[in-house]
């Protein structure tokens, strides 16, 4: 039957990652000589490298081989398609793909289906025809930051958004989640929502311009951490670091460092390593013919100076922390 | 008089900053061969380019068979029956000879969709055969020598069956024998009623083929003469505004050897050996394609020497590039001015100073004052006109560009000057100035090699002449042995060639 185009944020056929074991039991035994293919968006961003580490970590644990490849640059849509098609041709048993755009890996879904290879769409662009999706709720990234503002800045004020690449699903959802949530109470106004193109320099310049126009700004929300770190510098450059808060998204290690140093206010970590592990687990369960829901939601959490030590440091196992948070 | 075939009526043309033509009027009868004469920069090419639709006149009109025309594009002029041979070669390097000849109005098949190359090549070959049957119409134009390319330009104008053909220095790269064939063609065209406007700085040609001449100076018509009833000197006086003295040849050759070439071989010349003395002017004659240009290019470091030695003032040189040659005091005035000579968008001054930037710099900076002084001095010496030193060189007439390149080597202090067709496209006045200049340079102790296709020129300036054929030197003629017949017979290989000494 025809699948409804997937909306990963609102798909009803979903479960939380924490329920995998409880609902489906331990990982079944897998066929011999088994190869998993991972197709990443780009390796130039730590987020995607961490995701690959997650794949590898879980694969090592259960003893399967993974190949993790990425397009040569972010935006190289056909290059990524070539990679994914190559993996189907070469007879990988299951694919984990993080498409550049919503559509560029569409043919792989079809080819893989014909070759009977399950495909898991892992974050953040969403292939409408995808049968399996593992990832977080993009909108929720923005929502969480907006909630922080509502709780911690009861007087409201002016806020600004630095967006990712125009037209990219994650950017649109994150921006929209933040904007609609924060404007709900009527206390906050989004005075600027400008493109930062995932680029530090552009975000720095945009933030400088915004701050100069609105020196009374209370905070920024940025669609990823790289841009947020650029904005932090812009805020510091005009000496407003005590008044203006800056939030990023992704939870890359530099963001953690910056939060620990008291510069970046917070980031919404979507735990790429853990996401990778979960995605790998889902893939393997699919190979073992388990019937999983279409969407498996992975965890995310707003990291600030207050809770950073729960997620980072000696002896902290993020998995356990999050499991606990999920109430398991 | 009946309605003229062609009438220019009060044509004026203003370029930003220059009035190139003012109030030019004259007419040409059907079948007339009409010379258009004038010094460099007089406005001849500008007038013809207006006629052929390349430029638009600022004022005035052109009448063809009594009907007024204002051509907006070259195509409209062509359709009105005008063909033009441009002074500068107008060719596209990656097309073949035939494609170039038919460019803009290809012969086609299948309703204009497919170029009929075979037919084009056949007709191109026909037209070429009238002057030079050796040119292969299917060869890419870039493999042709300049002279051959000029033949192609002429042949292109003959394709159209035009009623007016404007020829702007059609023979500037050609040898007398090719001119003779062109002259025959022109006469045949004339008897068929085709009118021809003929621009040339070669007076003998003009008197040989033309009936009447319009003389221009500084963009104005200064007179119209019947060439059958006028003396050359009189015409020249009209052109340059003064009498030209016929100068005698003076030799300044010494016995000190300045250049000693032994057994030089390049891709195109073989076994070249000769001596050049201080103060000597050595002429090099030969047919088109005999390797004269390549000889000069080898000496100037522009072409690779595969074997043999060159000594300058007794010192062995390794000429890996022109820079090395320039440093050794050798300067080349190249044959193809537009391609190898000028940097079109830079001023004459800069074009002049390019090889000798170091002489005009101090502490790494150009000393513009010194440069300006040198430019004023040297460009005056070559009589640059208009005398605007900051003007882009491309805006000067061809002849004046040539003068600037000569000045270049004076500025560089070169002692050995290699002139490849030095007076190509240069007016009679300037020509005699250049001859004079060559003599002065020789007297000052420069050594000069002059390659020229104009035998009178070779004989006028040379102390000694080498004749080349097929890439080798076939004869060496002393000044007393010089005559057109001797040179030509050696050049074509009829004389008892290869004398022992070379």
């Amino acid at each position, binding site marked *: 039957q025809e699948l409804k185009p997937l909306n990963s944020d609102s798909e009803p056929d979903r479960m939380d990652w924490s329920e995998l074991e409880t609902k489906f039991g331990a990982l079944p035994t897998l066929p011999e000589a088994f190869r998993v293919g991972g197709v990443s968006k780009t390796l130039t961003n730590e987020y995607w490298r961490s995701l690959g580490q997650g794949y590898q970590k879980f694969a090592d644990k259960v003893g399967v081989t993974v190949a993790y490849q990425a397009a040569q640059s972010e935006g190289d849509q056909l290059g990524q398609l070539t990679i994914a098609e190559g993996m189907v041709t070469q007879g990988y048993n299951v694919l984990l793909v993080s498409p550049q755009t919503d559509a560029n890996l569409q043919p792989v879904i079809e080819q893989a289906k014909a070759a009977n290879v399950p495909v898991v769409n892992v974050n953040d662009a969403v292939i409408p025809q995808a049968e399996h999706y593992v990832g977080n709720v993009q909108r929720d990234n923005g929502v969480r930051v907006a909630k922080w503002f509502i709780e911690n800045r009861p007087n409201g004020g002016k806020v600004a958004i630095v967006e990712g690449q125009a*037209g990219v699903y994650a950017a649109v959802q994150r921006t929209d989640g933040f904007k609609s949530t924060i404007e709900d109470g009527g206390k906050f106004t989004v005075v600027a929502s400008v493109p930062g193109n995932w680029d530090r320099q552009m975000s720095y310049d945009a933030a400088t311009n915004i701050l100069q126009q609105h020196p009374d700004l209370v905070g920024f929300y940025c669609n990823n951490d790289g841009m947020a770190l650029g904005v932090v510098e812009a805020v510091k450059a005009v000496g407003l670091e005590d008044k203006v808060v800056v939030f990023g998204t992704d939870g890359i290690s530099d963001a953690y460092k910056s939060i620990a140093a008291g510069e970046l206010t917070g980031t919404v970590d979507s735990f790429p390593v853990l996401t990778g592990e979960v995605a790998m687990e889902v893939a393997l369960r699919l190979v073992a013919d388990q019937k999983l829901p279409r969407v498996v939601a992975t965890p995310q959490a707003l990291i600030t100076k207050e809770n950073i030590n729960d997620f980072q440091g000696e002896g902290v196992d993020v998995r356990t922390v999050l499991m606990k948070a999920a109430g398991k | 008089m009946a309605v003229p075939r062609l009438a220019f009526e009060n044509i004026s043309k203003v370029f930003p900053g220059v009035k190139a033509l003012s109030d030019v009027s004259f007419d040409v009868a059907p079948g007339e061969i009409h010379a258009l004469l004038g010094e460099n920069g007089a406005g001849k090419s500008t007038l013809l380019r207006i006629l*052929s639709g390349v430029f638009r006149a600022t004022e005035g009109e052109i009448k063809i068979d009594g009907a007024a025309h204002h051509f907006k594009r070259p195509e409209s002029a062509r359709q009105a029956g005008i063909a*033009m041979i441009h002074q500068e070669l107008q060719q596209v390097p990656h097309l073949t000879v035939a494609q170039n000849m038919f460019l803009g109005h290809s012969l086609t098949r299948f309703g204009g969709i497919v170029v009929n190359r075979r037919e084009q090549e056949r007709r191109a070959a026909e037209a070429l055969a009238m002057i030079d049957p050796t040119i292969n119409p299917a060869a890419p134009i870039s493999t042709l020598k300049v002279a051959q390319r000029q033949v192609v330009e002429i042949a292109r104008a003959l394709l159209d069956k035009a009623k007016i053909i404007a020829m702007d220095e059609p023979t500037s790269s050609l040898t007398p024998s090719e001119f003779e064939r062109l002259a025959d063609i022109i006469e045949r065209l004339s008897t068929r009623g085709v009118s021809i406007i003929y621009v040339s700085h070669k007076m003998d040609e003009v008197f040989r083929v033309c009936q009447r001449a319009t003389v221009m100076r500084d963009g104005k018509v200064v007179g119209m003469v019947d060439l059958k009833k006028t003396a050359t000197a009189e015409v020249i006086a009209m052109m340059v505004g003064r009498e030209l003295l016929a100068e005698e040849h003076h030799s300044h050759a010494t016995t000190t050897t300045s250049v000693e070439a032994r057994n030089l071989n390049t891709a195109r010349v073989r076994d070249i050996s000769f001596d050049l003395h201080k103060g000597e002017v050595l002429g090099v004659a030969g047919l088109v394609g005999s390797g004269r240009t390549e000889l000069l290019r080898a000496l100037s470091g522009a072409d690779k020497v595969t074997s043999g030695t060159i000594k300058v003032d007794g010192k062995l040189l390794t000429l890996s590039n022109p820079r090395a040659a320039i440093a050794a005091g050798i300067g080349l005035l190249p044959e193809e001015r537009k391609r190898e000579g000028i940097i079109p968008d830079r001023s004459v001054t800069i074009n002049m100073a390019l090889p000798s930037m170091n002489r005009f710099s101090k502490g790494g900076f150009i000393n513009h004052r010194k440069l300006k002084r040198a430019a004023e001095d040297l460009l005056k010496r070559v009589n640059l006109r208009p005398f605007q030193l900051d003007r882009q060189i491309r805006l000067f007439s061809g002849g004046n560009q040539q003068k600037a390149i000569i000045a270049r080597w004076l500025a560089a202090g070169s002692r050995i000057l290699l002139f490849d067709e030095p007076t190509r496209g240069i007016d009679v006045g300037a020509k005699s100035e250049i001859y004079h200049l060559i003599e002065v340079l020789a007297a000052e102790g420069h050594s000069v090699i002059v390659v020229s296709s104009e035998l009178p020129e070779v004989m006028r300036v040379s102390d000694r002449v080498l004749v080349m054929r097929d890439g080798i030197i076939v004869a060496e003629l002393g000044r007393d042995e010089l005559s057109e017949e001797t040179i030509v017979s050696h050049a074509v290989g009829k004389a008892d060639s290869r004398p022992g000494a070379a």
Partner: protein
Amino acid sequence: MSDTTQNAAVPSSKLFGSFSVRDTGTLIGLIAIVVLFGLLAPDFVSQRNLLNILQQSSINACLALGMTLVIISGGIDLSVGPTAAIAAVITATLLVAGIPVPLAILAGLGIGVICGLVNGVLVAYAGLQPFIVTLGTLSTYRAIALIYTGGNPVLGVPQGFRSLFNGSLLGIPNAVIMVAVVALLAWMLLKKTPLGEYLLAVGGNEEAAYVAGVPIAVTKITAYVISAVLAALASMILIGRLGAAEPILGNLWELDAIAAAAIGGASLMGGKGSVIGTILGAIILGAMRNGLTLMNVQAFYQLLATGLIILVAMMIDRVTRGRG
């Protein structure tokens, strides 16, 4: 120097006699790459994979053919990607709205004509530099595609359209056949028609072309229109494959297309370029991508290899052609 002394191949009027020295250089480059990858990755030379390479190269080849014509005319077209994007989203919208396939295709190609006309007119009549014109339209067209779709992909391209562009005939992908036909047409255009000569003339010596009565403006505009129409066609091949049209489709296509044309011997100074060379260039790039993936080379090293292979291909070519 550089060009004038080089031994130019004498074009011949025989069909495919035009396989010049330059093209041979490119072919040797391609063979070298195929042999290299064939040794390193055994799957590489399987028939299936070679067809794959052709299919994967087809989009770039399609664009690069148009780019070659523009480059020959002395221009450059940076706006091919966004042009493709506009054509894609509009074609897809029409298809989704139930417009018959042929009409939708025509509309998409028509968009190409318009985009190309804008580029061409700005270059030919306004006299602006091609690089900067198409840099401007690169942004403008992309913005139009984004605004038109609100940034969302157009999903649900009907099967009829998809099988046309994504099907295969006797085992050969339709896209490959289409591009082969386009290449043949481009080759004929360049070698056999007056327009081909005009392109070479305008790019080779604009003044000479003008004096000879070549319609400069029309020639240039035609080149840009062809380039844009081929970009539109490439976008259809792509949406046929993807089943969806995105406004951000075609990102960085221009660089690949230019690279293919340049590897194939087109000179960015104009007046020179080869259809056969361009096709070989596109296949070289496609084979390289494919081979590196088969070898499971990590992304950073793929990037390194891409750069080095482009340089080496150009050098092999330079050496094979020989030069003074």
